[in-house]
Structures are given as C-alpha cells and as structure tokens.
C-alpha cells in the first residue's frame, strides 16, 4: 500500500510528533523504502504458524502482593522539567 503525505501526518499525530510539510515529504520517501522492504513478508505462507514473542516457553511470573519499592519522589522529580508541591506540572487541561 502506497503511503501519502496525509497518511504521514496522521501517523505523526498518532505518535505525537510534530511534523512540517517538508519533513513529511522527506519522511514519505524513506518510509516508502522501508515498507517496500517489509512487504517481502507478504509472499510467505504462515497458515497454522503460531506467533512467537519469546524464544523460551516462559509464563509470566507472579509474586506476593507486598510493597517492594520505597518512596523516592524527590529523587525522581529532580529529573522533571516542571514540578510544584511535589506534583508534576503540565499545561492546564480542564477549564
């Protein structure tokens, strides 16, 4: 399937990445090349094959529901762009 400039803009919006017209143009060319590569998969018959996510037969481990992490809010918030009263600050979202 051939991508178009509006497709690129829609995908970029879904990914929350701002993109201008000239960037969208350049991205379209490169992404089209990559998708052509990916489309080699279409020729393969995968009927009856189970999808693989981990090489070993592992199951999700369970643990006791106990507190293991300690409160490190101040340490973690040192890396935050904007904090106040121990909270992460973002632009207003509710009128």
């Amino acid at each position, binding site marked *: 399937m051939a*991508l178009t400039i509006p497709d*690129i803009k829609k*995908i*970029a*919006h*879904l*990914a*929350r*990445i*701002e*993109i201008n017209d000239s960037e969208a143009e350049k*991205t379209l060319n*490169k*992404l089209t*090349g*990559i*998708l*052509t*590569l*990916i*489309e*080699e*998969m*279409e020729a*393969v018959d*995968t009927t009856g*094959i*189970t*999808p*693989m*996510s*981990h*090489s*070993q037969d*592992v199951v*999700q*481990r369970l*643990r006791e529901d106990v507190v293991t992490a300690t409160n*490190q809010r101040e*340490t*973690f918030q*040192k*890396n*935050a*762009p*904007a904090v106040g009263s121990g909270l*992460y600050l*973002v*632009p*207003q*979202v509710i009128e």
Partner: protein
Amino acid sequence: MINQSLKQLSQMLASKEVSSVEMTQTFLDRIKQYNSDINAYITLDEDKSLAQAKAADGILAAGTATPLTGIPIAQKDIFCAKDWRTTCGSKMLETFIAPYDANVITQFNHAGAVNLGKTNMDEFAMGSSNETSYFGCVNNPWDLTRVPGGSSGGSAAAVAARLCAAATGTDTGGSIRQPASLCGFTGLKPTYGLVSRYGMIAFASSLDQAGPMAKSAEDCALMMNVMAGFDERDSTSLNHPKEDYTSKLNQPLTGLKVGLPKEYFAEGLDTDVAKVIDNAIAEYKKLGAEFVDISLPNAGLSIPVYYVLAPAEASTNLSRYDGVRYGHRAAEYDDLMDMYMKSRAEGFGDEVKRRILIGTYVLSAGYYDAYYLKAQKIRHLIADDFKAAYKKCDIIMGPTVPSTAFKTGEKTDDPVAMYLQDIYTIATNLAGLPGMSIPAGFSKSSDGKDLPVGLQIIGNYFDEARMLNVGHAYQQVTDWHTAMPEGFA
C-alpha cells in the same frame, strides 16, 4: 598495561604491581589524550571513577577481591548508573541523571569493577554506524574516516583503541557483533533472557540483550560471569542456573560439528571478507572441527521481520518520553497536546522518529494482523530453521557482516542500505540465540587501509560456554585479537 588481558590485569592488581587507582588513571589519561580523535565517550566523571578505584584497592588489600575487582570497564550509555548522566545518545535525555543502577551496573559494582565512563551510541540504540548519536559520530580507530559500527559504537571504539580494559554493549539486531567485526575485537550477545534488562533503556524489549565487548573470548567469559544471572525485576529474565563461563575455555575442539549456512555465503558477501572467513574455517579444521553444510531458508526474511517488530516495540517503549516526568520539554507550547508534539519533535533525531512512525503505522488499527502478527509468525519459522540446523551441528559459523567498515556519511541517506549491515546478525536476535563475533583477519580497503573482519559464531540456547571455548581455541593459535590500530599505542 593497555594490551593486557583481564586475567593479566587482575594478576597485576593482586600482586600489587599496580593499584586500581593507578590503572584507572592510566586509562583516564589515555581517554584525555585520544577521545577527541574517536569520540568514544559521552560522559566522564574522574572523581566517581577514582573513588570506585580507591574502594577496589581496599577490597584488594583485604584479600576479598574477585576477578574483575579494580578493573576499569566502560559502560554503554544505555545503562542507568546512579548519579551518572545517562543519555542513551539522545537529546531527549541530555540532562537525565539516573536515579538508580541498572542490574548490569549493580553486578559490576558488586564485583568491585570501576565504571570508567559512559560510551557513545546510536540514539536509543537505533543505528549501525553510530552516526545517529546526538553527541556526534564515533570514528573507527582503524581508519578515522570510517564508522565503528553500531549501535554500541563508542564501546567498540574504546575497546579497539584500548581506552578501557573492556566494555559493555547491547545487541537488538547486531549492535554488539557488527561493531566487534568492524573494530576487530570479541563481542558476545548472550541468549535472550540471560542478562537482566532492568535499568537498560528499552528499545525493542523482546530482542534487546546486553553482553560483553572485550579483547578476547577469555575476557568475555570473565565479563559474562559478572553479567549473567536471574533477576526478578526483569519479567523476561530466565531462571537459568549460574555458570562459570571460563570452565570450558580449554576444551579441545576435536569432533566439534560446525554448520555453515549457505545463505550466509551467498550473493552480497564481499569477496575479501569471504576469503578471511575461509581462512578461519581452515584454521578450525586444523583444530579438529568438522564442517557440515546447513540451510536457514527463512534467514533472508529476518530484515523485513525485524523492521516490523523492532519499530513496533520501540514506538511503544518510547511513548514514555512525553516531556512530563523526565526528558526534554519544549520551551514554548500552546497546550498539553502541543507540548507533547513539540517536545518529542525536538527531543528525538530523524532515525528514531522514522522508527517510531513505522512502529505506529504497523500497530495502527487495521494493520496489526498484516504486519505485527505476520512478522511474529515468520519469527517462529526463523527460530525453527535454527532448531532444525542444530540437529546436524553443535555450532554455526559465518561472516558477522557482509563487508568491512564503510565511510562516515556513505549510507546516512539510505536507511535500507544501512539496515542490510545486520543481515547476518538479526536472525539470531529473532530466535533469541546467542551470537558472538571474533576478529579473524583484515581486508585491504581501496584506499590502502587494513580493516578488521569478524567471524560470527552462533550457538544453541545457553551454549555460551562452548562458544567462548570455540573462540578461545582459535585465539590460542592466531593473534588477530591482539592487533592494535596504529596511532593509539
């Protein structure tokens, strides 16, 4: 000192011939002298490194040292190290100070090793040339006009130029082995799940695996003894019994069955690289190995499969960089949406954005089955190819990379050509198998430079000790692994 093995360096420390502080200072001085040529390190912190060295000298004096106590190790800047700036090669994390240690860092700290500094890398480990780093390209010590490979390019250049005793790397599609081949040293990507991913900044979680990058197989074995082990904080960590990876190093190779996949010797392989690999095979025959032809019929599909799975997982993992809790936030924005859009547009480089977009596309409504699920099914076929092959052989050999190091800038405009660098390494990640690259010789470039060539050794699951044995046996009868690039003596 700089060309000594980890075992020799350890003996020098044990016999008090040199202290860890002196050894660490020697490497820090070399970094000061040479780093501007190759740009291998992003962050150095002499005070922290020397404090660790001083502590190590205390352990050595108390007689409770282990093999890596006091040894200066370079850490890829993908591992969170408490109170160290940890950037993952990205503007997004330019000022990020890690609040905790990755498990790999914890293991080296327990062993008493010294963190010598954080090495350069492709941004978020996405690249095969170290050209996507926000902190600049790394130059290959064998020819400064060429790339060192990637994504662990800084660790690779640091090992090759002897700006560390050894280094760590991570390998999602070849990021330890391809730079090991291009820079002429030994690098091992372990079985998926053997080394904990806790605190290792995520790229493609079902493929990412950390491993050692060092001068020899023996050095890698000592590093593996520290790095491998179950960790409940990584949900994909495997509870495999602890092993001593040095225990099989000296076993004879008589009767070892080596499989040569015909797909790895087909069109696209540089003829000079092929010659080097043929010579290595001849050497292994002298060591008693037997060779059988095998086939990995779906290996050619590994690149398309990888470029669905890795970007899909990356687009999910990198959604955490939103400019709220940590990472870059744009200076000006209208509202919350605009803040996300601008922060991510400014914080990520072009290749990272491309992969996020591909991942977002293949996971978007209506395309999941055609791309992601289809790729996971072919991944199964690729893993099954290896399973069938290991019925005929103990180990698989071939080239690591189709060619030698290319010129900086040569492939930056063509992502697909760049992706083909990993054509022989990616299948291993998809199958979750361990893979290693060892130096096997040199090939002369058209402008007269000797460029390293790597031999790839792929093992069955958990067969790292045997792979290291196979590498070590070769390194006992050849000296490619001791060769050093000119200008860094």
